[in-house]
C-alpha cells in the first residue's frame, strides 16, 4: 500500500497566471495602472471590523451580512503581485467599470446612482 494517506497538507497546485485571462485594469495609487491578474479580490469594503468589545451579533453582520448591490460597489482588492497593499476600489458590478481607486485609509464615497 502506498503511503499517501496523510499527505493532503497542501492543496493541489493551481495553474499559473493565465495570460488569456483578461479583465479589468486597476489604477493602483502606489504602482500605477495594472492588470487585474496582479490583484486578489478580497470582498466588500463597505463593512468594517467592529470594535474590540463588539457583540457576536455585530461580528456576525461583519462576516456574513452583505448587500450584493447591482451597481456601484466598494471593494477591497489586494495588490498581491505589486505593492502588497489593500486598495479600495469602486467598481460597477454590472459593467465592471472601475470608477475610483484609493488607499486603504482614504475616505472614498460611492457614486450616487
Amino acid at each position: 500500500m502506498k503511503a499517501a494517506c496523510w499527505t493532503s497538507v497542501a492543496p493541489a497546485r493551481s495553474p499559473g497566471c493565465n495570460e488569456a485571462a483578461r479583465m479589468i485594469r486597476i489604477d493602483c495609487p502606489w504602482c500605477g495602472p495594472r492588470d487585474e491578474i496582479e490583484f486578489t479580490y478580497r470582498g466588500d469594503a463597505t463593512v468594517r471590523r467592529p470594535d474590540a468589545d463588539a457583540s457576536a451579533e455585530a461580528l456576525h453582520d461583519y462576516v456574513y451580512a452583505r448587500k450584493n448591490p447591482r451597481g456601484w460597489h466598494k471593494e477591497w482588492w489586494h495588490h498581491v503581485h505589486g505593492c502588497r497593499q489593500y486598495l479600495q476600489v469602486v467598481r460597477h458590478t454590472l459593467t465592471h467599470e472601475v470608477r475610483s481607486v484609493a488607499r486603504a485609509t482614504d475616505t472614498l464615497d460611492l457614486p450616487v446612482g
Partner: protein
Amino acid sequence: MSQKFRTRSGGHIDRSRTLQFRFDGRAYQGYPGDTLASALLANGVRLFGRSFKLHRPRGVFAAGAEEPNALAELRRGARREPNTRMTMIELYNGLEAASQNRFPSLRFDVMAAAGLVAPVLSAGFYYKTFMWPAAFWEKFYEPWIRRAAGLGRASGLADPDSYEAMHAHCDVLVVGSGAAGLAAARVAGAAGARVILCEQDFLPGGGLLAERPHEQWREQTLAALSAMPEVTLLSRTTVFGYYDCNVLGAVQRVADHVPEPPPYTPRQRAWTIRARSVVLATGAHERFIAFPDNDRPGVMLTGAAQTYATRFGTRAGRRALLFANNDAAYDGLFSLQDAEMEIAGVVDARPDSAGAAAARARGITVWIGASVIGTAGRQSLHGVRIRQHGGDETRISADLLCVSGGINPAVHLASQSGTPLVWDDRLASFVPGVPVQTQHSAGAAAGVTGIAAAAADGARAGAAAAANAGFVADAAIDLPCGDAPDPTVLPVWEVKAHGKAFVDIQDDVTTADIRLAYREGYRHIEHAKRYTTHTMGTEQGKTGGLIGAAVLAEARGARVQDVGLPTFRPFVMPVTWGAIVGARVGEHYAPVRLTPLHDWHARHGATFMEAGAWLRPSFYRVTGDADDWASVLREARAVRRAVGICDVSTLGKIDVQGSDAATFLDRIYANTLSSLPVGRARYGLMLREDGIAFDDGTVSRLGSDHFFVTTTTANADPVMAHLEFHLQTCWPELDVQLATVTDTFAAMSVAGPRARDTLVQVLRGLDLANHAFPFMAVGDAELAGFPVRVFRISFSGELAYEIATPWGCGLAVWQAIMQAGAAFGIEPYGVEALGLLRIEKGHVAGAELNGQTTAADLGLGRMLKPRGDFIGRALAGRPGLVDPGRPRLVGVMPTDRSNPLRAGAHLVEAGSSTSLGWISSVTRSVELERWIGLALLRGEGRIGTRLQAKFPLTGEKAEVAVVSPHFVDPENARVRA
C-alpha cells in the same frame, strides 16, 4: 481534371507557380494565394462535407471565416487539426486535408440514411428520443449519436508544436483591414499614434480584394502603412475577444500555412492587446434566405461567389442564378458575368428596382416579386424551382445559386465590449449603438456600405481614435471614390414551401425546428437556441443567426428586433486550445518552487511530492528498501531511535517588527504572545474571523519589537494576506512592518535523541545544554562557519532543533549536519515520515485543520485567551461551535493489530450505519508497530470504547479502539530531555 474552373486571368493568385495538394487522398493543383476551398472549386469539386446531424451533402457556402460547411481535418498524425474552415486555409505545397463526418466516404455515406429518419432528429431530440430504457444510453444511444453527429476527430496525440503568448500596448488597435480599417490605420498612423492593425486573412484588404478598381488604393495604402514605424500590421491574426478596459485577445497563425513550423517558431501566438482606443472595422457577413433545400452544394452566398471569381480567379459554377432581396447583390452577379460565367437570371423578392434595371441592361432575365421554392440535384445543384409573381412555378437550370438576404454587420466584438445593438431598418439588421468603452465601429461593421463610404467612415474613426489617445489627425490622405449600390433590403427571411429550409446550415437547424421549439415553450431566443442548437456551431450564427430569430419572431407575433440575438461572447472564431494554453503544458503547467536542498534530495533517492507550489521529498529510497513503506518506516525509526534531518524550508516565514508588533500578534493569534520573553518561541494558533481554526505555527521573539512567525507550507500566502489585511484595513494605526522571508531562510529540523550530540559537534557560539538552551529556546549561532538561528521546537515529539540559515547557505549547513550525525546513523526524512511522527504525537495538520474544525475540536480549546480581542473571538463562542457534541480529535487503533486503517473511513457503532465521525489521518506507527489514526469523532466520553471503521466504497470494515490521540510520549518528556 486540372483547374478547369479558373478564369482566364486576374485575381490575387500567382498563376506562374503550381502547388500540389491532396484532399481525401486525391491529388489536386492550385496556386499560391488560393485557399483550400478556392483551389478545390477551381478543380471542379462541389461536395465538401457531410452535415452535422443529417449527413446531407454540403458544398462550400462562403468565402471567409463564416463558412458553415466546408470543414476539414487538416494535416496528418499528431498535427491533425479538426474543424478547420477550408475557406481560411491558405494553400501550401503538400497540404493534406480530409473531409469530415462521412462514412465510409464522402460520396457514399451510410449515415445519410439518417435523412430518412429525420423526423426523429428534430429539435430537442437529445432530450426526448433517447430517454428509455436508461441502460441503453451508455451502450447504444450515446455511441451512436457521437458517431453520427459530430465534427472532426482530434488526433489523440500530444501536439508536437509550441505556442506562445504575447502582450502588446498600443494607442489605436484597428481590427480588420478592409477599406475602413486601412483608412483608419493610415489616419491614426499619420497622426503619430502607435497602431496595431489585425487582419485575420493572409492577405490584407478585406472586401477590397474582390474590387479590382480599388486595387491601386489598397496597394498605396499598405505601402504607406509599412513605411510608418509605429504601425504594426498583423496578418493571419484573428481578434477573438473584447474584454473590459479595452483589453482584446487575438490569435496569430504564425505557421499554419506551412507543413510544419520552422525551428524555434511557434505554430500560433496568442496576443493580449491593451489599446487606448479601438477601431472595429470587421466588415459584415452576408446572410442567406431560408428556402427548401437551401443547403445543397451549389447554393452559395453571392459575395462568396464574387470573391471566388475576382480574388481567386475561380468560377464557383458554370451557370449562375441569383436570389436576392437587395440591389447590392446585383454587383456580385455582374462580377460573375464579367468572369465569363453564364447567367441564368435573377429571382428578386422585391418589386422592380434599380438593380433589376441594371441587370436587364446587361441582358439578364429578372423575375421580380419571385422566390426560390426548392433546389434539385443530389450531390450538387442542377436546377432551381421558383415561384413567380402571381404564383406560377418554373424550373430554371443552374449549377450555382447565389443567395443574398442582405448583410449582418459583424458586431460581435462591439457587442462583447458592452456596446448595445440597435436595429437598422434599412439593412434589417443590428448595428452597434453608442459604445461604452473607448471604441469606434467603422465601415460595414457599422452598417456603412460601399468602398468609398466605408473608407471615409474609417478615416473618421481613425481620427477619432487617435484623438482619444491624444494625437491630432490633420494630414489629408487619399481615399477611394465611387458610387455604391443601395444596401436597403426587403426583409425576406424565409420562403414557405415544402421541404427542409435551414436557418443554421452547420447545425442542421430548420425553420420547422425553430417553430417546434416555440410550440414546446422555448420562446426566448436564448432558450430556442439551446433547445435547437441554433447558432451553436463553430460558425456561431454569422450567416443565419438572424434568420432563426426572425422565424421565432413570426411564431411569437413579435418583431425580429424585439426577439433579438443570443448574447455574443468570446470567442468570435474557434481558437485552438494550444494557443490558449501557450507554454503552460507538462511541467510548465504551473510554477514550481524548489528548496536550496532540492538537488541534494534528488541525488539521494528522494521521491518528490507537490505541496502547494513546492516540491518536497516524500521519502528517500535507499538500497535495501523493499517498498515505499520500508523507506518511510526506516526514516521514522531513525528519528525515534537516533537522529534524522528534514528539510522544512517550505514552511511559511514572516518577519514581524515594530513597536506594536506584540499587540498586533495578540490580536491575530488566539493565544497570548505579548508575554513571550525575548529568546523564546511559542506555539501559536490563529482562527478565522468566523471562529474556525485557520493555521498554526510557531512564534519566536527575537527582540522586544521583533518577532519571527512560521506558518504551514500550504497557508504561507493566505496567512500573509490575512496579516496584511488586518494591519492595513482594521488597525492601520499600529506600528508594525511585515515581510515574507519564506525563501530568505532555508530551514531544517534535526530531531531525535541524538540531535544534541549531532549539533554540538558543528555548532559554535551557543550552549546547547538543556539548562542553557531549554525547550522552546531561540538563539543565534554559527554552524560550520555559517550564520544560523536555532529554534528548539519539535513537531516529531523528539528532542529537536530547527536550524534556519540564509537560503544560499542551506546546502553547506545541511551537509555539515549530515556529516556530524553520521556517527549516530543520521537519516534524512521526508514528508511521509514527518507525517507519521506527527500522527504518533497527535499533532494536527491539514487533514484536521480542514476549515471546519474549531480549536476545541482539535483539543486546543484552552489556548484561547480569556481576555482581549482577537480574530475569531466573538464568533468562536457561537452555540454551534461550542456544542460539546461536535466531532473532537481522538486516536484510533484497530483492535486486531494486524489490520490496516484507511483515512476517510467512517466511525459507526457496531450494527449501525450512522456516522459518528471519520478517520482523518492514518499511518503505521514505528513506536507501536501497528496502524494508528487520528479521527474526528462526535460525542464525549468515547475514549476507551470500541467502534467500527467502515469504508463503504470498498466494503471494508474493521473494529477500532478509540484512544487518546497522543500515542507516543503523552507527557511530552522527550522534547525537554
